[in-house]
Structures are given as structure tokens and as C-alpha cells.
């Protein structure tokens, strides 16, 4: 795959991921509660987009290995009252584009730009903020500013370090997709 098409695919995948996350968030406040069918379809699209994104990124930068801090989500389990099934400020997905922009079909081009995730992925785990919702961490601007609360009926997902089924090299988003559905 040529560099330019890989970049296009990458941008497209990122955009779709961003749109999907904003849709997942919006569906939480929908009347009638979370719709299982819709959430499932959204998570499938996100999974495809994430896979494409990663494979196109690997083809882009084959030199350095990606030490994605997969252990990072485990630490959050200890955060009191901040656990949410849909971890919001996933460092991977901090596009500059707001959901209003992504809603316009033709605005793909001015969407996600270069400053997007590369640095964050290579950050050492120690530097990652424990409290993902703390004021220090920069929440993407398209996500609700209110801290997400635990909905009644949702489980606190305490996954101890090392028991995560997510393989090394997979990102935060992998875990979050699997945890969308247990919200029911």
C-alpha cells in the first residue's frame, strides 16, 4: 500500500472512529436507554476502523515497534467513582475534529490532522495519568465535559494488571470496544 493511500485510509478510519465514539456517547442519553443492536453495530464499525487504522499505521511506520501501553486501562479500575464503560479520553482518539464537523459528509479533509495520536501512543506508561478524567488530562473536545458517572446496573470492571485479555500491542480502544456491550 502506498504511503498516500495508507494515510487516506488512516484518516478515514480515524474519522469513523471519532464519529462512532460520539454516537456511542450520544446513545447513552437517548430516551429508552442504550439500544443493544445499535451499540453492537457501532462497536463492529469501530473495530473494523480500529483494525484498519492500526494496520495502515504499521505500514506507515514499520521502523519503530509500538509499545502501546495496554496496561494503562487496568490502573483506572481503582479510580473511585470514575469508572465508566466507555472510557472517554482515549489518547489514541483525540482528533481535532468535533462531532458537528464529522456530521457533515464532505468535511473529511479538514478532520484529523497530524498532531493526532502518534506521540501519545509512545508515551511511557508512567506518564499516563491514572485519573483519566482529571483536569490535567486533555479530554477531546467532542466528548462531554461532564464526568461520566456509573449508571445503575453497570459493573465496575476491575481487571487486575496482567490478566487483561488484550494482547500486547493493542491499544486502549480494543478494551473499550469489548466493554461497550457489558453495559447491559
Amino acid at each position, binding site marked *: 500500500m502506498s504511503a498516500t493511500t495508507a494515510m487516506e485510509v488512516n484518516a478515514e478510519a480515524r474519522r469513523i472512529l471519532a464519529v462512532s465514539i460520539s454516537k456511542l456517547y450520544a446513545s447513552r442519553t437517548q430516551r429508552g*436507554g442504550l439500544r443493544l443492536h445499535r451499540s*453492537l453495530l457501532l462497536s463492529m*464499525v469501530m473495530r473494523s476502523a480500529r483494525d484498519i487504522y492500526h494496520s495502515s499505521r504499521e505500514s506507515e511506520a514499520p521502523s519503530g515497534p509500538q509499545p502501546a501501553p495496554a496496561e494503562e486501562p487496568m490502573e483506572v479500575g481503582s479510580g473511585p467513582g470514575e469508572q465508566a464503560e466507555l472510557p472517554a479520553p482515549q489518547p489514541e482518539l483525540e482528533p481535532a475534529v468535533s462531532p458537528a464537523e464529522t456530521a457533515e459528509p464532505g468535511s473529511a479533509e479538514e478532520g484529523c490532522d497530524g498532531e493526532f495520536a502518534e506521540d501519545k501512543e509512545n508515551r511511557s506508561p508512567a506518564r499516563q495519568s491514572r485519573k483519566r478524567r482529571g483536569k490535567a488530562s486533555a479530554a477531546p473536545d467532542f466528548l462531554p465535559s461532564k464526568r461520566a458517572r456509573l*449508571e445503575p446496573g453497570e459493573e465496575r470492571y476491575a481487571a487486575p494488571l496482567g490478566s487483561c485479555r488484550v494482547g500486547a500491542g493493542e491499544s486502549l480502544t480494543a478494551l473499550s470496544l469489548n466493554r461497550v456491550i457489558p453495559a447491559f
Partner: protein
Amino acid sequence: TLELTVRASPTGPGGDMQWCFSQVKGAIDDDVAEADIISTVEFNHTGELLATGDKGGRVVIFQQEIENKSQPQFRSEYNVYSTFQSHEPEFDYLKSLEIEEKINKIRWLPQKNAAQFLLSTNDKTIKLWKISERDKRPEGYNLKEEDGRYKDPNTITSLRVPVLIPMDLMVEASPRRVFANAHTYHINSISVNSDNETYLSADDLRINLWHLEITDRSFNIVDIKPANMEELTEVITAAEFHPHQCNTFVYSSSKGTIRLCDMRASALCDKHSKLFEEPEDPSNRSFFSEIISSISDVKFSHNGRYMMTRDYLSVKIWDLNMENRPVETYQVHEYLRSKLCSLYENDCIFDKFECCWNGNDSVVMTGSYNNFFRMFDRGHRRDVTLEASRENSKPMQVLKPRKVCAGGKRKKDEISVDSLDFNKKILHTAWHPQDNIIAVATTNNLYIFQDKVN
């Protein structure tokens, strides 16, 4: 693969049918109140009654009037027969969830006596409604005055027999049964069995079998909930009983498969008797392949030999004896395939279109965008696109076929894909069981069209 290609009719209206505007119901103004959005449309078994449900939880029933003798070529009209509030919004305190009052489905029971019965359901609760007529009232009670006040017994000197006197027709709807608390997930389908005693209700993961007389218990006949919800890969999207075989039902999934189950095989029908699935065309693979293969509706043909499924872009007819592919595939709006990303962003890709058969299973119909709806004539291999709009609403106005220009040079009278109004969607359509009368629901209006030729 053997796929019947449907050629658009070269000139004039599709097939032998000429569809004319008959009536439109609902508010005229463009500002649509959310509660007025029509969410289901269903004819009863004779076609005399037409029921609609809306997002506000109301059911409106129209009745076909006696034929108009002065205009014999124009069949009778449907007028409001009964309106009632079927479901109210509720709140699930345990889950802190609001339960919408939107009517997801209405299904009529075959008529057994003077009253009519229908089942209506929202996301969680199914109700059996009795609709009865009252055109007489009693008069001449001995112990009561006409206004209802009780008489002093000492003043009564003679006895008389109360008589029934005619009164203006009153149609009453009363809830006879409430089938509640059986569904954890959102109910998408109900279907009355041919035995007229039982019915099924389906949510995303489970299907329950009820007896119409018993409300405190139901049998779970399908359960696809995985032990670990994180392993969930598909949900149930629609279910229906076979029209004649009371032991057979089908359910469709979000993965584009249909399972036929036989209740005689076991109590829990998790193992299907037949699995209908068409292999995916690898050249059409995209981010959105899974979404557009999700089946939004499944309907048996009246003769019980076929079933029809609707996914986002197509309608497929399946022979119940052939599981590996459909016998017919009709493209509803193939020009949208290149627009899937935009349709994902504006949520249209999640729209759940329904489909229906005509009385003799020769034509199928489904809706599209821009208030277009499509008919596919299976026998003549013709299809037509028609539009439900206020502009084409003169009495008996013949509907002109519409054409969407997918690309290239747009001919006169064609509409380009980019000009389509995706907010104007026709999700619900119904066909009279015997005659060529169709009911087409736009967002908040119900259009009734008739075939000009009898």
C-alpha cells in the same frame, strides 16, 4: 448465482397497476411533532380496518366505509374509527431507564366475534386491546333515573323492563390483557400464531411464547444471550410465525441470517431447523458491510412457501426449501452503496425499513428515502418507484413513476442522489390483504393509494 434481474418498466407505470392517490391522514404542516411520528402500520385480516401506532404511544384505527355507489371506480375511503392511548411512558427505577411509549408493532387477531382485537407493543410491554362498538343504550331502569341518580325505592309503584334504544355509534377500546415484565431487552416483533391462541414476542436476545389468555407467564423459546456479553456478535432483529404451520417460526439476525425453528423439536429452540444465509460478496466489503447486512424485517408470504427479508439496500425472497441463497434479490436503492459513510454519519444507515407482500404474493413493496417507495413485481420482473407527497395529492391523481439518477447526466424528471431528502423516509408500508390498496407512512402522514383498475 441465479439472480433475477429486474428491469424497470420502459414506459408508463409499473406493471398492470396504476396507483392513484386516495387519501392522506395527519397534520399538514411541516413542523412534525415527535409524538406524531408514525411507527407502525397494519391492516387487519379483512382489510376493513387499518391501524397505525405512533411515537406518542397512540393507536389510530381507520375503517373502510361502505362503498360509494355514486363513484364505483373509486373504492371506499378509510375514516377514523377509534383512537386510544395504548402505552404511556414509564420509568424503570431499578435501571434508571425511561421506557418509551412508542408503539413498535401492532398485530391484529383474526376476528372471532363482534369485537376486534389487536396486540400492540412498545419496548417492554405487550397489550391486548378489545375494540367494540356500542350503538344501543339501555333506557328505563327501575331503580335509577336517566342521569344515573338512584331513586328512592319507596317512590316506585310499578316495574318495567328496560329497553335498548339506538344511539350514535361509539367505538370503545379497552385493554383486556397486559403482558409485562418478560423482556430485558427491547421488543422488536410480535407475531400471532395460526392457532389463534398463542403469540410470540421477540427482543434483541430472546423470543417468548405467550398464551393470549395468560399474562403472568410466558415460555422462553429462543435465547441467544451469550454467557459473557462481551462475546455478543449478533442480535435478533425480527421474528414471525409461519402463516399456516403453528409449530414453525423464523427469526432474523443482525448478521443477515434467518433461522427457521420448529417448536416440536425441543422446548428451547436454540438449534435451528434451517439456517438461511447468503455468502457475502467480497467485492462489496467495507467498514459498513455488517450494518447493511443486518436484516430489518422478515415476512412470510401469504401462501407460506416463501419469506422476504429486508436489509439496508435490498429485498430478498427466500424459498423455505433453499437455505444457501435467496431465489430473488431486488435492489431498493443501490445508488446509496457509495454513500454509506455519509449515511453512517447522519444515522440513516441504522434506519429499519419494513417490507410487505400483496395479497397473492406477486408483488412486494418497501420504502426508501425522499418519501419514495418501491414495488417489485415478481412475475413480470418489473419494478417501480413512487412518491408519497402532498404535491401529488389530488383525488385520484395517478402517481408518476420516479427515477433516481445515480451518476452521470441527469435526465429531465430524474432526481439526483445528492438531492434526495434523507429526512423523508418511508419505513412502514402495508398492503391490503385482498385488494390493491396500500398504506404508506411518511414521517407523520399516512397515505392511502389505490389501484385505478379494479
